[in-house]
Structures are given as structure tokens and as C-alpha cells.
């Protein structure tokens, strides 16, 4: 009997017992939910499983990067939605990084108008919900802008109207094969020369211009190929028609609103991250740079930014993941991203479990991929201590 009581008071036994209990509780809870779900689905006559993905979707998707027709399958519709989500996320992330850098520099500016305007912008964006902003932009595009006949055309070829934004599209006519080959060759050569020049200059301590020479020669080669194969570049400008503008590159009101809204919102956050990173670099680094006789631009580029990047990268990772997650709000204005496709599919087929599982899987994969990539990049630029 004493053996059993010591066993009960033994820390190890207790820990194992408590953990087993916790595991059993969680497993039991999850199992109970799954059993309920199975029972309820049976009652409603819904067959589970992903078989529905092969069936024809029969709902329209207003715009997509990947070609789509309503006769395509549900599985294809999900891919089309994913394509739209990724397109939106990547374009917004790139544009917001550039704009965010501008915002950060503007907020640090000594010029009172510039820094004041940047501060007002950042505070307004950060302290109002994104959905409100998206709805505002969408209403502004569809209700606030004039119709196509009174369209707003700031420069020739750019049309902004309630039907969306129309931009000129560059068109290259002729045989593009040799040019593309030359482009690839040029890119590869520039990459190799840049890398070699960097290694050489680090090894010898003497700056060289291999990279620049390679870029120039690649441009020369491209120009030569362009001239000899007789390629022509023209701009396909949109023209105002009876109901719509034709030609050029048309962006729907939904995309315009979501892109503008997400861009402005994310750029405010990215700007603050970059500003924080630049502020985190010691003032002495600037002063040392000045003492060495470097100009302000070079100090920023060669001394401050490389050090600031170490501070910036981790929050930037979560910001890029946030942008990807925020693209789901496009559903509020009707841009067909994957969340809208999932919602429509659930409505039409009743396959709620599967639809939501696909949505979850997609976002978990995207989050994990993004954080793996940024971790790799972070390791690359992290401080190497000897």
C-alpha cells in the first residue's frame, strides 16, 4: 500500500497523469465535435469529402488573373481565387514597401509640412479599421467618381471613372523570341558580374565597376537585338466608349478600391516599422559617416539601412503576413479573392466544412511559407559576430 501512495505523490507520475488527462480531454472534445458534425451532416443529407471539387462551379468570377469560365470546376475556382489573393497580396506588399519607405523618410524630415502631413496620414490610417477604409474607397470609386462620359483623365491614356481605372498597356509587336533570349542572357551575365565584382572588391579592398559595365553592355545588347529584329513598342491607350472604356488595361472598381485601401493602410504600418528601424541606429553612426566625408544619401544607404534592416525584418515579416491575411477583407467590397470563392462555394454546395478547411489550409501554408522565407532572409542579413 505504501508503494501505491508514494507513486501517487511522485512528481513524475503526477505530471504524466495530468498530461494524459489533458490530452484525453482535448481529444475527447475534438472527437465529440467531429461526431456531432458527422451526425448533423448526415441529417442534412450532405455528403462529406472533397468530391465536389470536380463538379462544375456554375458561378461567375468577375475578374481573375487565371482564366476562368463558370463551367470550370470548384477546384479550379478555388485556384482562381487563390491566384487573385496572391496577386493582390504581392502587388500590395511591393507597392506598400516603396510607399512606406517614403512615409518613413517624410516622417523623419525636418521640413514641418512634410513631416506633419506624414504624421496625420499615419495616425488616420492606423486608428481606423481597414474595413471602413475599404468601404469608403469602394463607395468613392463607384458613387463618387463621374461616369465614363465625364471621366477624370489627369493625363492622356489614364481614365478614372465609376467603372474603374483604365491605364495604357504597353504592346510589343514582332518576333519576341530573340529579345527574350537576350534579356535572360543579359540578366544572368549581370548577376554573375555583380557577384564577382563584389567578391573581388571585398577581397582586394579596391572598388570596381564590373556590375555597372555588365549592365551597360547588357542594355547595349538588348538595344541591338531590338533594332535588328524589328520590334516595335506601342501604348494601347484606353478609349472612352458608349458604356465603358475599351482597350488598355482596365482595373475594376473592386480591385482599384481594395488595392488603394490596402496599399494606403499597409504603407502606414510599414512606414512606422522602417522609421523605427532607422531611429534604432545610433546617432553616432551618422556622425561617423559624416566624419568620413560621406554624403547623407550614402550614409543612409551604406551605413544606416544595413543596420536598420536587422531591426526592420522581423516586424516586417509579420506585416507581410498581415497583408496576406487582410486581403480576405476584399470580400467586403466584392473582389473575388479566395475568401469570396469559399463563401460562394459554401453557399452553393453546403460543403461548409470542406470550404473552410481549404481556406484555413491555404492561409496556414501562406503564413508558414512567408515566415520561413523571411527567417532565411533574416539569417542572411543578421549580425555576424566573430
Amino acid at each position, binding site marked *: 500500500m505504501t508503494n501505491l501512495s508514494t507513486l501517487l505523490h511522485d512528481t513524475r507520475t503526477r*505530471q504524466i497523469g*495530468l*498530461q*494524459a488527462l*489533458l*490530452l484525453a480531454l*482535448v481529444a475527447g472534445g475534438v472527437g465529440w*465535435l467531429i461526431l*456531432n*458534425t458527422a*451526425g*448533423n*451532416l448526415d*441529417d442534412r443529407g450532405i455528403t462529406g469529402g472533397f468530391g465536389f471539387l470536380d463538379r462544375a462551379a456554375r458561378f461567375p468570377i468577375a475578374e481573375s488573373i487565371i482564366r476562368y469560365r463558370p463551367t470550370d470546376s470548384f477546384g479550379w475556382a478555388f485556384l482562381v481565387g487563390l491566384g487573385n489573393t496572391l496577386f493582390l497580396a504581392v502587388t500590395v506588399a511591393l507597392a506598400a514597401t516603396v510607399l512606406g519607405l517614403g512615409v518613413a523618410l517624410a516622417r523623419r524630415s*525636418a*521640413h*514641418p*509640412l*512634410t513631416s506633419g*502631413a506624414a504624421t496625420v496620414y499615419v*495616425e*488616420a490610417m*492606423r*486608428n*481606423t*479599421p*481597414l*474595413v*471602413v*477604409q475599404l*468601404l*469608403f474607397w469602394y*463607395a*468613392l470609386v463607384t*458613387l*463618387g467618381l463621374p461616369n465614363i462620359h465625364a471621366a477624370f483623365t489627369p493625363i492622356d491614356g489614364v481614365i478614372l471613372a465609376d467603372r474603374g481605372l483604365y491605364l495604357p498597356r504597353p504592346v510589343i509587336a514582332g518576333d519576341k523570341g530573340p529579345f527574350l533570349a537576350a534579356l535572360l542572357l543579359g540578366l544572368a551575365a549581370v548577376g554573375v558580374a555583380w557577384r564577382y565584382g563584389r567578391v573581388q572588391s571585398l577581397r582586394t579592398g579596391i572598388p570596381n565597376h564590373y556590375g555597372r559595365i555588365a549592365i551597360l553592355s547588357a542594355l547595349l545588347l538588348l538595344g541591338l537585338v531590338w533594332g535588328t529584329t524589328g520590334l516595335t513598342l506601342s501604348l494601347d491607350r484606353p478609349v472612352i466608349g458608349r458604356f465603358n472604356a475599351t482597350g488598355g488595361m482596365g482595373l475594376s472598381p473592386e480591385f482599384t478600391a481594395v488595392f488603394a485601401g490596402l496599399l494606403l493602410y499597409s504603407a502606414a504600418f510599414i512606414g512606422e516599422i522602417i522609421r523605427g528601424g532607422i531611429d534604432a541606429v545610433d546617432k553616432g553612426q551618422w556622425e561617423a559617416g559624416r566624419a568620413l566625408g560621406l554624403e547623407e544619401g550614402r550614409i543612409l544607404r551604406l551605413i544606416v539601412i544595413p543596420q536598420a534592416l536587422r531591426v526592420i525584418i522581423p516586424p516586417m515579416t509579420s506585416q507581410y*503576413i498581415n497583408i496576406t*491575411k*487582410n486581403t*480576405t*477583407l476584399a*470580400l*467586403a467590397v466584392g473582389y473575388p479573392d479566395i*475568401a469570396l470563392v*469559399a*463563401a460562394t462555394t*459554401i453557399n452553393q454546395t453546403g460543403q*461548409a*466544412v470542406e470550404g*473552410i478547411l481549404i*481556406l*484555413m489550409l491555404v*492561409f*496556414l501554408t501562406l*503564413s*508558414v511559407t512567408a515566415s520561413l522565407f523571411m527567417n532565411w532572409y533574416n539569417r542572411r542579413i543578421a549580425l555576424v559576430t566573430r
Partner: protein
Amino acid sequence: MTDMTQPTPVFVRTAPTPARAAPLAERRPLWHLLFGDMVSATMTLIGLLGLAWMLPHLLSWAVINGVWTGGGDECRQAGACWAFLAQKYPQILFGIYPPAEHWRPIAVCTLILGLGLWSLPPRNWTKLTLGLWVGGMLGSLVLMGGGVLGLKSVPTSAWGGLPVTLLLTVWSLGLGFPLAVLLALGRRASLPVPRYLSIGIIELIRGLPLLSLLFIASILLPIMLPDGVSIDKLARALAAMVLVSAAYIAEVLRGGLQAIPKGQTEAAEALGLNWAQTTRLIVLPQAIAKVIPPLTSTIIVMVKNTSLVLVVGLFDLLSAGRAALADPDWPAPFAETYLLIALIYFTICFSISRYARWLETRMSKGNRR
């Protein structure tokens, strides 16, 4: 005896050199900042030109052509339709809550905002305040829902506007916090089961968009519960919000827990306290005190997140505003309505962020001594 005589020193410093005056602070006059060099002058010019172009448009829209009184017809072919806001503000603020009972949502908003204001100064962070919050949260539910104390019963489907936004925020934080403490402690535990369970839950929730969690709560939850059990739509959305706030707060708390030196736990163990006592009396109070400023920022995130419940058909401030815009008698003055809604959110979030900054400097001063 040596003939090496000490050389007579030429100068011996007997007193420290007087301190040099501090260099003049570089304070450039305003005109210099605005027009000092080409770049500044260009930026000033661009800014002024932009203002000169925008201000007349804005003024003519908002003031000169603005409609302050009247109905929908006066607003067509005119500037800003402030008359719409003047007439519709009860609907935007309180949704479709029965107009005769509007004093109840007003009381709820006043109660929550008042409690918030009361809790601002750190000297009010007492058990009494905690009790007041618990009472206030329960009391506001009773006030909104009614059915007791002679109050007319109002179903949650008729709740709307600002009180829903405030209630969702307060309840998701209030229920999320205890859950967050468990998750944060679990994540730091040495035992594998609670640790991996907590990591899994936290990362799962943080990796998913809030929208998909709201979908799960509104579409999947009814399927996952046994037949006959139905949960209110508002409560389902709240469940999703609670999980989100728990995951975010847990990560903030983890930072606080990591900042507690190990010596604190060891000292507590040396005094004979067990794990629960050590955690409750020694570790948690210090960890929570350390992360109050970042926790304040989490409140802002949650306030903004509540606006998402619109996608599952709940009437928070934003959806109530959208519903008001659908009135065919008016020409849908969306800009004015969204500006009002944005202004309400901005007032709440901006004040909280200023408060967080004030708290941060105050606390870092205390640490520096």
C-alpha cells in the same frame, strides 16, 4: 644621494578647467526649414499648391454647398449632406434597437466609456475596479437584453451600432485575458503536452485571418454542436473574437513572462511556495505589470477588429451605418457617413494609443529611478 634633481614643473593644474559652455542647439528658424534649400522650397511649394487646390473644393463641398437641414431631396445635386447625419445618427449609433428604448444603449455606452476613463490612472488599478468591470460587463448585457427588472426584452438580433462594437471589444478582451494567461503559461511550461497544445492553438489562430475564424464561428459552429443546441449569432462571433484576443494577448504575456528573471521563481521556491502560488503571487503580477503598454495596443487591435463582424451579418457601428445608407429617400451620402464612423473609431483608438504612450514613458521613468 643622487644628483638627479627633480625638474621644476612648469605648470601644475590645481583646479579643474572650467566647463565649456554647451554648444548652441541648432534651432533653425521656420522660414529656413521651409525655404532653406531647393528641396525644402520645392516641397513647400508643392504642399501649398496642393492645399490651394484642395481647400476650395473641400470648403465648397463641406460648407458652402453643404446641406445642414432638410430632407433627401435637398441633398441631391448638392455638397455634403450633413442633414442625413443629423437625422440618421440614432440609427447609425444604435442600429435597429427600438427607438423608445434608446436610453438603454446610451446608458451602456456611457457605462463602458465611463469605466474605461475611470481605469486610466494607475492608482485606480485595484480589485474594486476589477469588480466594477465584471459588474459593468454583466450589467450592460442585462441593460441591452432586458427581460428582467421590468425592462422590455430586446433580442440580440435587434442590437446594433456603437454598443455592439463596445460590448464585443470589452467582452472579447475580458474573456480572452484569462484564456491568454493559461495559453501563455502553457507555452512556457516544461511539460510537452501543455506546451505543444498552447503553441498549436496560438499559432493556428494567429496564422488564420480573423475573417476565416468568423466564418468558422458563424457557419461551422452550428454544425459542430449537437442537434437542438443553438447559440446566439452574437455569441458565436464573440467566441471567435475571444479566441483571437486570447492568442494575441498570450503572445504579449509571453514577452512579460520571459522578462522575469529566473531568480524570482527560485526565491519563491526557496520560501516553500508551490508552482501555483509562485505563478499567482510572484510571476504573473510582475509579468502583467511589465506588459501593460503593449496590452493597451492590443485593445486598439480588438476595437478595429470588431468592425469585421459585418461579414457575418451582425450590426456593429459600421454595418449600422451601411444599413442607414440604404434608405432610398436619401442619395446615399456615403462619404459623410463613413467619415463619421471613422471619426468615432479614430477617437477611441487614437486616445488609447496616446494613453499607451503616456503609460510607457511613465513606467520607464519608474524603472530608471
